[in-house]
């Protein structure tokens, strides 16, 4: 039986309560009659034999590209770059897709007699991965073969010797990327394309870039013009990356792009109720929900986090394509839409969403308040094509505990951003103008980024810029069940229950508002007609 497509449920009297994520917890909320709930499509059947599919993709590239074996020769310099810890979410069960793909690439390189091979984690300004995280992503065999010899490195956007400036785009944007990658005879980039934003020219132009280069598109103006950044053709973020990618190609950097799609199998069997629509829950699902929610309600947050950190997603690969960047990415994007797309008729006055415990930037860490904002206003709000799910001036209601809590190892500059920047202003443009440069050039943050496991000093700014479109669009943002001080510091309103939040929202959008709930994860993309 083929998987069912996404679905928009109209809530009536017989509709059971709807599951809302609340960080490391869940709740069942009864939505007003007439509300809509958007469910993701069911998981697409995975590839029966991923290894042979990868091999086939490498041998039969798309676009203007030779098969990979034909691009490999003795004496060449080969670099394989791959996505970092931010993908996929949650981290997938072993073997990770990166491992499967890179093993095949390395086998072909060995067959061709290529000796000079280096692996680079495409961190951009993200934190460096730990050894266990790297072993999980690429497997022990690859790690042990490369890391001890210094051939597995993590991109360092602050090492001037390891960067090369390739020129300016026709818009005057600096293109500065990893020197090893740029000076290789062939750069292979291995992607995990979880959402439509991932991949394409963004892989190299962002993942291997410096702050000098990134600042041209990671800014509030670009984000406000990206509607949304999940829709490449209406995304200024992507336009800038495409300009840069084409300049990179024109500068002689030969990129062989590998992109992979995942299905929507997000949670392991213990949490199958999270994958299902509530009215289809069986006794086992109800029991699972009760057991999980009661246990988590009694578990201190730090232990609940540890429980969820151990969760590995049973994601399966649904497609793999390789070759020329733009041709590859066009296919990948189609597949993302096939798995995640849901047609939705019209906008809503109030959009609700339950925020889970994880975002791209807190794997094995804490979803701090800035990341809460980014997950809701940056990511979930932007999961649309056409028009935002919520109308201009509408209200976004999110459920999350939003603790005033940070991981000082991973997010040191976030702490200062929250304390010293958001206490002054929450306007993304003012934030950028007054504070960005100081944080971006702060030697302590640079030190921690380069030598520890810290996100770059400017990273919290990017998280805030990610919210810029939503902040401009929305009439109000309400967080249900959040720590008041933290919610207010974000510039949002705090409500203790969903009912209270709806009352507060009515003050903004009127007394008879329409309401839509985004039932994610699993991730979905709303095609708003």
């Amino acid at each position, binding site marked *: 039986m083929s998987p069912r497509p996404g679905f928009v449920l109209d809530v009536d009297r017989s509709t059971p309560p709807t599951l809302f994520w609340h960080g490391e917890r869940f709740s069942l909320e009864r939505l007003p009659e007439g509300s809509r709930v958007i469910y993701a499509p069911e998981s697409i059947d995975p590839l029966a034999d991923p290894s042979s599919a990868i091999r086939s993709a490498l041998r039969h590239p798309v676009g203007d590209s030779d098969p990979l074996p034909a691009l490999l020769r003795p004496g060449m310099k080969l670099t394989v770059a791959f996505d970092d810890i931010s993908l996929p979410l949650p981290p997938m069960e072993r073997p990770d897709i990166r491992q499967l793909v890179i093993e095949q690439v390395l086998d072909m390189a060995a067959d061709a007699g290529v000796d000079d091979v280096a692996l680079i984690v495409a961190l951009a300004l993200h934190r460096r991965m730990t050894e266990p995280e790297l072993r999980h992503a690429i497997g022990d065999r690859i790690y042990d073969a490369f890391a001890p010899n210094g051939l597995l490195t993590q991109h360092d956007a602050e090492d001037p010797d390891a960067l090369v400036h390739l020129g300016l785009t026709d818009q005057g944007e600096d293109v500065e990327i990893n020197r090893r990658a740029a000076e290789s005879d062939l750069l292979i980039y291995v992607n995990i394309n979880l959402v439509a934003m991932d991949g394409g020219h963004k892989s190299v132009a962002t993942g291997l870039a410096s702050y000098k280069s990134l600042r041209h598109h990671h800014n509030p103006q670009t984000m406000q013009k990206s509607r949304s950044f999940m829709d490449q053709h209406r995304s200024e973020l992507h336009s800038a990356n495409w300009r840069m990618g084409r300049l990179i190609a024109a500068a002689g950097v030969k990129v062989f792009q590998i992109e992979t799609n995942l299905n929507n199998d997000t949670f392991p069997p213990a949490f199958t109720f999270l994958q299902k629509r509530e009215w289809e829950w069986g006794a086992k699902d109800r029991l699972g929900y009760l057991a999980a929610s009661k246990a988590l309600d009694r578990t201190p947050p730090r232990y609940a986090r540890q429980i969820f950190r151990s969760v590995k997603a049973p994601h399966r690969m649904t497609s793999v394509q390789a070759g020329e960047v733009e041709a590859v990415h066009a296919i990948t994007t189609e597949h993302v839409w096939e798995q995640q797309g849901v047609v939705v008729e019209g906008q809503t006055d109030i959009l609700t969403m339950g925020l889970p415990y994880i975002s791209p930037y807190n794997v094995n860490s804490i979803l701090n308040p800035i990341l809460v904002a980014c997950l809701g206003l940056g990511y979930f709000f932007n999961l649309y094509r056409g028009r935002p799910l919520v109308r201009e001036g509408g209200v976004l209601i999110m459920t999350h505990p939003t603790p005033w809590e940070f991981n000082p190892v991973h997010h040191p500059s976030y702490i200062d951003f929250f304390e*010293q920047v958001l*206490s002054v202003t929450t306007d993304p443009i003012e934030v950028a103008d007054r504070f960005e440069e100081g944080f971006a050039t702060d*030697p*302590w943050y640079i030190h921690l980024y380069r030598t520890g496991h810290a996100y770059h000093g400017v990273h919290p700014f990017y998280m805030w810029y990610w919210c810029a479109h939503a902040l401009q669009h929305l009439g109000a943002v309400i967080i249900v069940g959040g720590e008041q001080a933290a919610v207010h510091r974000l510039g949002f309103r705090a409500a203790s229950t969903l009912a209270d939040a709806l009352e507060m929202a009515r003050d903004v959008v009127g007394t008879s508002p329409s309401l839509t709930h985004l039932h994610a994860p699993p991730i979905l993309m709303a095609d708003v007609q």
Partner: protein
Amino acid sequence: MKALVFERNLPRYAASRVASIFGSGRGAGIGPLQLLDREPPDLPGEGWFHLRPLLSGICGSDLATLDGRSSRYFEDMVSFPFVPGHEVAGILDGGGIDHAGRALAPGTRAVIEPVLGCAPRHIHPICPQCAQGHTGLCGNIAFGDLAPGLQTGFCTDTGGGWSTAGLVAHSSQVHAIPDAFSDEDAVIVEPTACAVHAALSAGVEGGDVVAVIGAGTLGLATVAALHRVVRPSSDCTVVVGAKHAHQQALAEDLGADAVVAPEQLARAVRRRVGSLVLAGRLTNGADVVFDCVGTAESLTQALTMVRPRGRVVLVGMPGKMSVDLAPLWHRELTLVGAYAYGTEVPPAAGAPATAPTRRSFELALDVVSAAGLGSLVSATYPLERYEEAIAHAGAAGRRGAVKVAFDLRNRKGNTR
């Protein structure tokens, strides 16, 4: 007439100390302090005048004494029984003479500079410190014609501000207050003088980053002093660690560039100076840190955020404490005490070496006037409600207050 009298009574002293475990000022009712009938003290000699208190503040050092937590260092510098209260705004019913030798008409309102140095003790010749105007450093505070007592409010002969019977003030202590001053303005002059003295002791230079730990009366007055006295010639950045919301708002109003929660202060300083962090300490921190709390924790915090060869100024009264001084040694820090007041050389751009001097109190009068510091007086109580008053002062920050004072004007007080 009534006065609160502090007597040497070890059982009561112990009881007060135990009660203070539950909060500063909680042991006032069972401690060595008692409300007794008292007559005005006798004038100790020529140059002394009776001063009838109008308002008298409750200071952190008073609380430490009442809690039994002040250092034993001071044991020989007080005489029992004494009437506390050294922050005094009063009235010279019989007139008097001020510190500069000016005659003051009966009914003149005045504040007292409470240090009991050589002049009030009729010691001749006066000590070198008093000769230079640094009366706070006088070494004769237990000698001469008066019983021991480092200040009015700790000396059995002079009386103190917590009294309707009044106290005696020597002309060298008397500063008339301007007519425009409210009594609240006047009672805040003494702690402001301490803050002025501290601000000028720190050697703040133009471009310095200055951190202030604590935003009680002394911390806030220090911010005001830095803004009004230091900044005109040495423009500095002032970052304040303040625990409570009302303190944060006041610090900002008084001239702080940034106000953060205490636990955020080191990070705020680090951001401003662009420092790294090593062993939990800033490698290049604030040029000057004012510790306006005076605890081991606050001093430790100060030592973590001051730059090498920087200066830590102790403004809040410390006691016996255990602090790791390794960073002080290793980073060649200067730890400066800033006690009371004296004679200052007000900083001025291009000032000659022989610039005129002014008393800390005179400068404090200017600061109080310019900054409106009288508004720091948050609550007043009649003497009869001294237990409530002292408990309120001990929990001032938590209860949204800054300065709590006794109202001796036959009023019921204002405990808003």
